[in-house]
């Protein structure tokens, strides 16, 4: 009998063994609050939108803080932030501006205003900037914020061992580039000094008008170097993380959610405008498909809308008003190799650009989510120059004429032409539309070469030595400065050669504009430089980058910031009103 029993249960042994393994392998679990959350969810009918907006889990966990205002945000880009480290940050990480405070604010308005600094002043020759910190600023653990904190954070960014993503923003600083390349190892030789607790002095190699805008960027946000040493890789986890921004990280369950609360020690200038008590980011792998249903169910207050859902949302009476387009200072571009046939001929480049119906592309293929380009750089940059932008007209006859002049009447004899792009949805849509437009308008057959995004990097670097026809790209302005479009894309000294455009007149002009001190002259020089590009089109701009946010009507003051979505949460007025009702 024992044997029989054993036989019957033998296969079950396998599973029970693993079951016990599974149970012990599980780390900390919050069983109790979860159960409560379930009942809370049960009791709460999603009939009333206002009620549904409050995340039930919170109420269960913290019944005492029921009056707290929570803004629930479906985080974008889709999943987790890869990092909360300013050295690995980048554009579009809305978390950074909430957690850290740089010396100046270069996003809220066209003007650069002091933020953590109380004031800043330039020396006579514009090579030394002295920042005076606001008194009484504190980190979220109560420690005072000192100039030395900023100095150490900046040095950490250019330390080659940190391997920061954008150390080049620090290169205008004296000896910073050499330090980053490892040629100088003594940090005291770098032009960053902190003579006292509230004074930070930055010495530049040469006058650099755009440098101050960089100081407002995420790379210049301070971190607690002592805590990074103490906690090692784990310094970004909730509980260890300390910042100096209006919010602090209180919870981060990887792949599930991240919660910010107001930093009680914060005394900076956002103190009164940070309306939200608590921001909860929903971190989901498939946010593109989950965002809209969750928003419609009232589970989240703010979400981003995928392009494909827009037509339906815009047609509905209920949701059309909740759709908010936020422009971002970026362009989707096509880069051509101007040293390789056939695009070495300016007429071919012009013909290709003139034959693109940008309106149809933006309205049709992209469903109206983006503004069609009328000039290389987006409207928020001073270089934006749509006047008589030759390459940006839609003129098929002229395009045909130019192509014929270049020796390819009706596309006859046009060499094999390959476009390389990354195989993501939007690029795919755009490329197919362009392929059809060129075929129909010019009689040109182009080959599409989609690459996996990660393989695109190697491909780009290898194109420094090899010729190509055309590549798809996306250029963002990290700061609201035209150099992000001109010098960053065209300077022959850049590490990526891109279009190999060697018009010396243009190169001299944009290099002179970079260091020009007078803002008006500088803008005029960049506008002139841009008109050269708009005429010669070594790079074709297709449309301007943007994001479409869905915002519940009770969320007020959700500001649109021209070049970044980073600051929006400071302004947002979350479902507070409904709690008062």
């Amino acid at each position, binding site marked *: 009998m024992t044997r029989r029993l054993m*036989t*019957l249960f*033998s*296969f079950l*042994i*396998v*599973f029970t063994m*693993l079951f016990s*393994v*599974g*149970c012990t*392998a599980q*780390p900390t*679990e919050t069983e109790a609050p*979860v159960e409560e*959350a*379930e009942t809370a*969810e049960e009791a709460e009918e999603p009939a009333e939108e206002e009620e549904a907006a409050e995340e039930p889990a919170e109420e269960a966990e913290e019944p005492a803080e029921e009056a707290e205002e929570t803004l629930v945000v479906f985080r974008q880009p889709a999943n*987790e932030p*890869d*990092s*909360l*480290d300013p050295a*690995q940050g*980048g554009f579009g990480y809305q978390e950074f501006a909430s957690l850290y405070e740089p010396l100046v604010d270069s996003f809220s308005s066209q003007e650069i205003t002091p933020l953590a600094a109380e004031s800043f002043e330039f020396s006579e020759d514009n090579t030394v900037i002295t920042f005076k910190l606001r008194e009484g600023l504190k980190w979220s653990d109560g420690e005072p914020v000192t100039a030395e904190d900023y100095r150490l954070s900046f040095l950490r960014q250019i330390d*080659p*061992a*940190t*391997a*920061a993503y*954008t*150390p080049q923003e620090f290169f205008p600083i004296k000896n910073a580039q050499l330090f*980053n*390349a490892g040629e100088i190892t003594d940090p005291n030789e770098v032009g960053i000094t902190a003579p006292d607790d509230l004074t930070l002095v930055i010495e530049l190699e040469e006058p650099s008008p755009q440098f101050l805008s960089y100081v407002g960027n995420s790379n210049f946000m301070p971190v607690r170097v002592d805590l990074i040493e103490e906690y090692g*890789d*784990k*310094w*970004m*986890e909730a509980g260890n993380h300390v910042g100096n921004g209006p919010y602090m990280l209180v919870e981060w369950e*990887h*792949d*599930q959610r991240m919660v910010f609360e107001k930093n009680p020690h914060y005394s900076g200038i956002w103190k009164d405008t940070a309306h939200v008590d608590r921001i909860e980011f929903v971190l989901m*792998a*498939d946010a593109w498909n*989950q965002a809209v*249903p969750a928003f419609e169910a009232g589970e989240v207050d703010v979400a981003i809308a995928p392009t494909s859902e827009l037509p339906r949302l815009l047609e509905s009476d209920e949701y059309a008003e909740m759709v908010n387009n936020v422009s971002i200072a970026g362009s989707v571009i096509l880069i051509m190799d101007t040293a390789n046939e056939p695009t070495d001929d300016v007429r071919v480049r012009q013909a290709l650009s003139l034959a693109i119906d940008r309106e149809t592309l933006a309205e049709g293929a992209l469903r109206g989510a983006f503004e069609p380009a009328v000039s290389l750089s987006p409207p928020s940059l001073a270089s934006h120059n749509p006047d008589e932008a030759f390459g940006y007209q839609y003129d098929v006859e002229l395009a045909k004429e130019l192509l014929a002049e270049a020796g390819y009447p009706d596309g006859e004899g046009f060499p094999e032409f390959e476009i390389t792009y990354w195989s993501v949805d939007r690029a795919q849509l755009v490329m197919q539309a362009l392929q059809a437009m060129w075929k129909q308008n010019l009689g040109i057959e182009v080959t599409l070469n989609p690459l*996996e*995004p*990660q*393989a695109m*990097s*190697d491909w*780009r*670097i290898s194109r420094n030595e090899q010729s190509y026809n055309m590549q798809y790209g*996306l*250029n*963002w302005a990290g700061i609201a400065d035209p150099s992000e479009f001109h010098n960053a894309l065209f300077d022959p000294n*850049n*590490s*990526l050669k891109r279009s190999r455009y060697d018009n010396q007149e243009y190169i001299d002009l944009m290099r002179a504009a970079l260091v020009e001190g007078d803002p008006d002259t500088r803008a005029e020089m960049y506008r002139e430089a841009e008109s050269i590009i708009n005429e010669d089109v070594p790079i074709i701009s297709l449309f301007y980058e943007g994001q479409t946010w869905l915002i519940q009507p009770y969320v007020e003051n959700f500001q649109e910031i021209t070049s970044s979505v980073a600051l929006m949460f400071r302004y947002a007025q979350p479902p507070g009103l409904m709690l008062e009702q």
Partner: protein
Amino acid sequence: MTNYIIRRILLIIPTMLVIFTITFFLMHTTPGGPWDAVGRPLPIHVIENLNAKYGLDKPVWQQYFIFLWGIISRGDLGDSYSRAGQSVSDIIVDHFPVSLKLGLAAMGVAVTGGIFLGMLGALKPNSVLDNLTTFLSVFGISTPNYVVASLLVILFAVYLDWLPTGGWDTLFSKKAIIPVFALSLGPMALIARYTRSSVLETRSQDYIRTIRAKGASEIYLFVVHALRNALIPVVTVAGISLANVVTGSFFVESILMIPGIGRYFVTSVTARDYPVIMGTALLYASLVMLMNLLVDIAYTFLDPRIRYN
């Protein structure tokens, strides 16, 4: 038997080494690197610094031995490139238990349900009941689990509003019902098919006829003799399915917002996150080997003729 088990466990070591080696070189010969996502490309000097920080500037054979030595000497699988501050062990410890629990529950359902359905079908071959279970099995095998998950969400979460659309608390919450069922349907159907054909085959054996001739009741004969011998192929299938199911499903986890390990099998490859690729590959390989061993041990209980000496 003990000797056999020890020998099998020792054999795992060279097998893992082969898997490690193949995965390592395959991953390094795949074009592309970990440092560029969609967007503005990183300057070359930044990529060089990053490569130096993570040791990717060394020749590949050196990286191979450094990585291997890290695992052997410290059990260190390295740090994720794309998730700053998280080591591969962190990712496995955080996310694997979720997939494991879901997978075990799903397999529990699959084995119970599969054997039950299979037996129902085998009781009266070609009857209405048999055709019904056959239909269910074919449906289960041919419908991918993400389709099942989506259908269940639409039916139970959107229309009926009985269950949440997604998310994860614990195994014993309403949020686990849809994923457990979606994950179990495929293996359940497979097990049902195997059980049915295996039981039918066993029933036509001579010794069954002998037992029947001795006057044993049909139920006794069926459960104790036919089923027991029919379980060998079933245990084989269930073992391999288990390794598969407990490592999660990219689609089901994505659709149902479950923080499991399944998505890392896919995202690590697309992001060229080398340490995570190695970690997930080794995790899966060790589970498959463990399950094979357990299945082989289970055979000795099921069939006294099988001995490993």
